[in-house]
């Protein structure tokens, strides 16, 4: 079954959706959309590092995303307005990454694979990495779920219940870096943030509790991956952008369904 590239691609998409759904819900609740952008754009810098040091791309993107996520997390505690700082960091990381890749000798790099994903070329090993990463992230969020929710609602309330809100933010930061590292192959650095936010936003309209929203986001994410792949196959469109376009279509149909 895994011999079929389309089956592998579908499994990869569903794997990413599994992790991106609950994490994306937190990104939406905490208004961290730009945080997701900065972290995923840093992944391109990670790709450059990986190619430069001939290490695995997964490792490179993980390190770069983690570094960026920690940096942004630290800056957000300085209490300054984050908008400009995040904009500077996100786009500089992307630009520096692209510049750095151009310097790498002797490797023919298909840049668009990293920018927009290359889900149809997912190998068995990629699949293993994606599902391991997705399960780690989902498990981490499941384990910390109650504490994460409490800290998201109100930091002081969490502290009074014996929860350290900083530790919970670190959990989200780690999870975000991991999702970026596993999702770059599927939707590419430019569209990872879309896979976090759009399915969660679509699920909002149907949900009455945070848990419903997280599960709904997984369902919408997985459905988007399958629909996007189908579209890519039949209309010969690029797979990553097609997946995000499908997610956007789900979001559009969910509008006006916001339950009070």
């Amino acid at each position, binding site marked *: 079954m895994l011999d079929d590239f389309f089956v592998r691609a579908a499994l990869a998409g569903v794997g990413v959706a599994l992790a991106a759904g609950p994490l994306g819900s937190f990104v*939406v*609740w905490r*208004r961290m959309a730009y945080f997701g952008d900065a972290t995923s754009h840093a992944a391109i810098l990670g790709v450059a590092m990986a190619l430069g040091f001939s290490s695995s791309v997964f490792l490179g993107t993980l390190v770069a995303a983690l570094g960026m996520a920690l940096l942004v997390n630290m800056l957000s505690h300085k209490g300054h307005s984050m908008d400009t700082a995040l904009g500077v960091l996100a786009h500089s990381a992307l630009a520096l990454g692209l510049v750095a890749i151009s310097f790498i000798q002797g490797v023919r790099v298909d840049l668009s694979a990293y920018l927009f994903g290359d889900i149809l070329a997912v190998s068995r090993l990629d699949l293993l990495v994606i599902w391991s990463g997705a399960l780690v992230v989902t498990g981490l969020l499941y384990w910390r779920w*109650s*504490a994460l*929710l*409490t800290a*998201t*609602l*109100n*930091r*002081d*309330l*969490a*502290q*009074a*219940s014996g*929860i350290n809100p900083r530790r919970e933010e670190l959990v989200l930061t780690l999870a975000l870096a991991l999702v970026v590292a596993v999702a770059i192959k599927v939707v590419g650095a430019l569209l990872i943030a879309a896979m976090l936010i759009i399915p969660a*936003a679509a699920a*909002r309209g149907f*949900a*009455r*509790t*945070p*848990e*419903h*929203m997280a599960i709904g986001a997984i369902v919408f994410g997985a459905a988007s991956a399958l629909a996007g792949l189908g579209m890519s196959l039949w209309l010969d469109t690029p797979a990553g952008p097609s997946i995000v376009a499908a997610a956007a279509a789900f979001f559009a149909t969910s509008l006006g369904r916001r*339950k*009070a």
Partner: protein
Amino acid sequence: MSLISAKDVTVCYDAAPVLSHVNFSIESGEIVTVVGPNGSGKSTLLRTLLGVLTPSKGTVTPKPGLSVGYVPQRLSVDTSMPITVSRFLSLPHKKSDAEQSHALERVGVQGFETRQMVDLSGGQFQRVLLARALLAKPDILILDEPTQGLDQPGVAAFYRLIEDVRNETGCAVLLVSHDLHVVMSASDRVICLNGHICCEGAPTVVSETPEYRALFGLGTQGALALYQHAHDHVHDGDCDHHDHAHEDHANA
């Protein structure tokens, strides 16, 4: 031992002291009201006692195993988060339906379990916050300006509720109020704060006097009292705006 005690606590934001040399403790079953003008460090004191802020100098010692029920000044539920009252009450620990319904009934919002938090009015929201705090079976309830935005009968009703809860459960209550003069009559102590503790004393219960009735009208049923400030010091420099002539009110 005291439930929470603070010893010679100084808290600074960016090197500027917000609280200096504050000594404070609260005993089991006691009701303490903290009053003070805006920016006087009331919330800072609460957040330091909660352990959110670390004092630059001095120590805060909670009793080991202390259970705190906290009602924050503001809790804005982002509209992007769907959450029912019932789910909120179970944060961070699962509470049974029976416990939830009992707590909601206790604070006067029975049957609210399936409502969305974002749909509640200000008064209902405060009561749900209180219900959640009570579900922790607290040794101490800490409330940061819980009556903000309530009208006077609303304030009186809320104070009566807090007093009843204290009488039933024996928990201590630490309450911050921005109203310098009208406090919860059940307060054992009132602390006036303005960067440091300015004065401390019991509120004057004057509910029988005609002046009181003229001031508060009927229907508050003695839940409110006046606090007469007795400041024995003057501030210098930038603290000129601090009003030490509170006594006028009590004599009115």
